[in-house]
């Protein structure tokens, strides 16, 4: 049914005692054989049996000491060949082992993909089919959003630039193929090669950075939002239990989003206090506002803070209206003061509201309970940023591989149309990060850049 092999960390991310990397698909056993070394034992592995050894790369560099188990199909969760590697729970061990598995031919699983395979391969009762399909749909979108979010900022910009450059080379080659008699500035094979080499260097830097800078971030990404000076930073400090953000009466003090981890009744939160959202002419504050808006887009949970002592402003209303579809809690602060805030039903559902006062911590406990309930009832989920980071790294590697093939094709004296096969693959690989599709991009570029046609 499925022709590729998938892998993921199947225990919750974090610093638990062990982490289990699970692999499913036809290549599961060959991948295990490539990464798993047993001491003094060369016999074939028996199915459904746990073995002791190390996970190491081809040079013998050990990622972790592990227990591994191979389970032959069909008596497995997905009804495919499954491999489990039990490693130490620290983020670097898990990341190292998972990376080895991916480098040897697995691809990162989409969220819910093991379950999806189990279902499609007939493992799961059909009465649950509808529910599973909902989950597949929701999770696939979530994964795509997560991968894109992770690469926001400079990395994302760099990917977009590389992508544009590939399209530009492709369009030149394609235009000269489709319009051989037009006066087009011919792109030489040397140009194609030089430009590919420059792109390979840029990708190398990105891949290095992705590898070095990766930390296992986990937790429910939570954004605290609201107009300036309603008490967002005070709420953050309360949740963190420390004085972390600058608290001041001057609106616009928090100019950058601050990210901190907190454990709220067992729920891991990644908290971002964002700049107050308002129109501003201050350059630095505006950058903060833009960053805040990005955090709102990517967050799993929004805590919207309103001032209970003053009427709703335009900014409050538009924030409430724009986030109606999101998982959110609306905290009405300053409930110790006389209430002046009136909220229309159209803006908000009653069960989203919690009244608090951060001066005397009234209602604060209710807020914590609400977060806990939402998490354990499955209304909010944590993002698996390790997987989305690895997925992005793999896309960058495939892009690089394609460009290396382009260089090889030029060196082998092949005509330029052969380069397009790999340029297209490179562009498609980056497309998983940038969301761009190749065909339309190239044809649009040809017609916008070159004067061709009869």
């Amino acid at each position: 049914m499925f022709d590729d092999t998938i892998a993921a960390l199947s225990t919750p991310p974090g610093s638990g005692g062990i982490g289990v990397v699970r692999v499913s698909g036809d290549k599961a056993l060959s991948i295990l054989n490539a990464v798993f070394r047993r001491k003094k034992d060369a016999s074939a592995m028996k199915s459904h049996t746990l073995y002791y050894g190390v996970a190491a790369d081809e040079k013998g560099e050990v990622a972790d000491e592990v227990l591994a188990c191979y389970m032959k199909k069909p008596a497995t969760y997905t009804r495919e060949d499954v491999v489990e590697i039990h490693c130490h729970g620290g983020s670097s061990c898990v990341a190292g082992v998972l990376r080895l598995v991916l480098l040897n031919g697995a691809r990162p699983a989409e969220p819910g993909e093991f379950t999806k395979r189990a279902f499609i391969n007939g493992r799961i009762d059909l009465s649950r089919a509808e529910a599973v399909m909902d989950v597949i749909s929701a999770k696939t979108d979530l994964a795509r959003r997560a991968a894109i979010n992770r690469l926001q900022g400079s990395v994302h910009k760099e990917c977009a630039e590389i992508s544009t450059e590939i399209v530009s080379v492709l369009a030149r080659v394609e235009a000269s193929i489709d319009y051989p008699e037009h006066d087009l500035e011919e792109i030489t094979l040397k140009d194609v090669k030089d430009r590919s080499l420059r792109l390979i260097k840029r990708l190398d830097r990105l891949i290095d950075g992705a590898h070095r800078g990766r930390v296992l971030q986990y937790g429910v990404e939570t954004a605290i939002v609201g107009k300036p000076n309603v008490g967002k930073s005070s709420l953050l400090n309360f949740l963190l239990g420390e004085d972390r953000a600058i608290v001041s009466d001057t609106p616009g003090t928090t100019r950058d989003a601050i990210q901190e981890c907190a454990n709220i009744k067992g729920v891991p939160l990644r908290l971002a206090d964002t700049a107050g959202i308002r129109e501003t002419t201050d350059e630095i504050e505006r950058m903060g506002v833009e960053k805040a808006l990005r955090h709102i887009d990517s967050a799993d949970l929004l805590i919207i803070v309103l001032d209970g002592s003053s009427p709703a402003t335009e900014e409050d209303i538009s924030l409430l209206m724009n986030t109606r579809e999101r998982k959110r809690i609306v905290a009405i602060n300053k409930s110790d003061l006389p209430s002046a805030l009136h909220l229309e039903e159209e803006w908000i559902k009653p069960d989203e509201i919690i009244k608090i006062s951060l001066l005397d911590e009234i209602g604060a406990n209710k807020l914590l309970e609400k977060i806990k309930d939402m998490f354990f009832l499955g209304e909010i989920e944590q993002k698996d940023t390790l997987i989305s980071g690895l997925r992005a790294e793999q896309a960058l590697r495939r892009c690089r591989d394609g460009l290396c093939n382009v260089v090889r094709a030029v060196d082998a004296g092949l005509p330029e149309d052969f380069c397009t096969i790999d340029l297209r693959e490179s562009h498609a690989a980056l497309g998983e990060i940038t969301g761009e599709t190749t065909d339309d991009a190239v044809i649009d570029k040809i017609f916008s850049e070159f004067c061709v046609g009869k």
Partner: protein
Amino acid sequence: MTDYDVVIIGGGHAGCEAALACARMGVKTIMFVMNLDSIAMMPCNPNIGGTSKGHLVREIDALGGEMAKNIDKTFIQSRMLNTGKGPAVHSLRAQADKAAYATEMLKTLQSEPNLSLRQSEVTDISVQNGELKGVFTRSGAFTPCKAAVICVGTYMRSRCLCGDVITDVGPNGLKNAKRLSESFAKLDVSMMRFKTGTPARIDGATIDRSKMQIQPGDEVITPFSFDTDASGAQRVQVPCYLTYTNERTHRIIRQNLSRSPIYSNIIEGTGARYCPSIEDKIVRFADKDRHQVFIEPEGENTTEMYVSGMSTSMPEDVQEAMYRTVPGLENCRLTRNGYAIEYDCIDATQLTLSLEFKHIKGLFSAGQFNGSSGYEEAAAQGLVAGINAALFALKKPAMTIDRSEGYIGVLIDDLTAKGSDEPYRMMTSRAEYRLLLRQDNADLRLMPKGYAAGLVPKDRFERFEAKRESIEREIKRVGQVMATPEANAFLRSQNSAELNSGVPLRDLIKRPELDYLKLAPIDRNRPKITRDVAEQVNVRIKFEGYIKRQTEQVERFKRLEDKKLPENIDYSTISGLRIEARQKLSAAMPANIGRASRITGVSPSDTAVLLAYIKKARVQS
């Protein structure tokens, strides 16, 4: 009254292929045309083929169509383009003698015993309960039929524009068709309005050829049809000429832009980006100081010439002035004005891959009416629609071509799955499996389909099978025959590395500096094979690695194409699909998961949900 199985509406390049396919497949066919003197007319450029279009013509030939044979009989110049690039993008183009092309096609149509030709305007299509019943013509006469193919080109409610002069006619001043559009509106067919254009024609006796660059044909002519004997196709060729616009030309155009119907907003239709008028080029690429102009003969028995590169809808006086600024054309006389033409066409996403309307059984449609542009694109669709109309009348399953099998497949899949918001032109960059879809192997890819449909005759198919076997045999042989260090003298002469031990000949063919033909001196027992076969052997071995990779890509593509979606599926009940996807899928009713995934507005998660859905449906049934 004679009974007909299939009615063909229109006698252009689509109509001719559709009519011949039906007649040759043994069904009684009638072709209605507005004017019997304009069959197979070429109202725009006087050539057939070119990049990607040449591929379409080869594929038409492989399936048993007529375009390749007809141009082989009537071409006056021939060139293989892109020979400096890889084999996948070599493209054949021939200049046609327009009048001869039309006459030869008419002769071929008239020689088909199963085909009747009739000059009469079809005004209404009769459909009952979603099934085609027949067509009405202008006099009110009713022709019942099992299937019909609409090939009405650019004639529907068309109008031509030249400056502020708007004429209520079809292409080339011919009568247009006014009433059929209403009939489609009644049938719930969604319509669009497109625009295209053509340059002026000039009198070749009034141009100065010495001021232009001569563009001769190839020394050795390659015919289009796999059946045409290359040695018999050689002939004396008529040249084309290259010249350029200049700053004076551009100034005249810029000064008169307000008089162009495009820039004065008279035009309603959507034009194509790849077919810009000269005024478009000057506005959009203002920094270019000159544009190429190709002067091409319209035939051997006429002095008229086509001014390629200067399509225009400027007023007559501006046309005259601007053409005369071009070197060589200083004293040219216009014989026909350039013009823009607007016409009704359909949104082709209403059609299946066999080009049948999804909601009207037996009604097929092809050509510019489907939103494409170009003679070759029209003919390719006409052939597929015609074959399927005949198969429908014969109660046989439809024949379809997918993206991995031919440019025709890419063309029809793009039109029917994605639709087009401008006239659609074939381009090699649209074919993702380009290396497999070469013009040299169109017969290997498609002739078995043409034979299975009953259009390619048995004797032709047997010749083809012999060719196919001979290719396989020779590939096997060069894998077994060893070259030894004895060949080193030869290798030195070719600047190729010498051998220390024996290697199979095929390894030497793969070297960039060598190929199959060059190795003849060291391949003493080489059997006598044709040039065609040698070409296939060479390409298949030389580019083996890339061909293998593309073949793997095709296998991945096929896996989704093979997952069929039931015809009666109710997307509104499938949980997990996004609302936009439900709407798009309900409207398109794609035949399989692959087609569904290419619809704009269907996301990868929707595709995943559909995969789960069909698996569930299969287990339950």
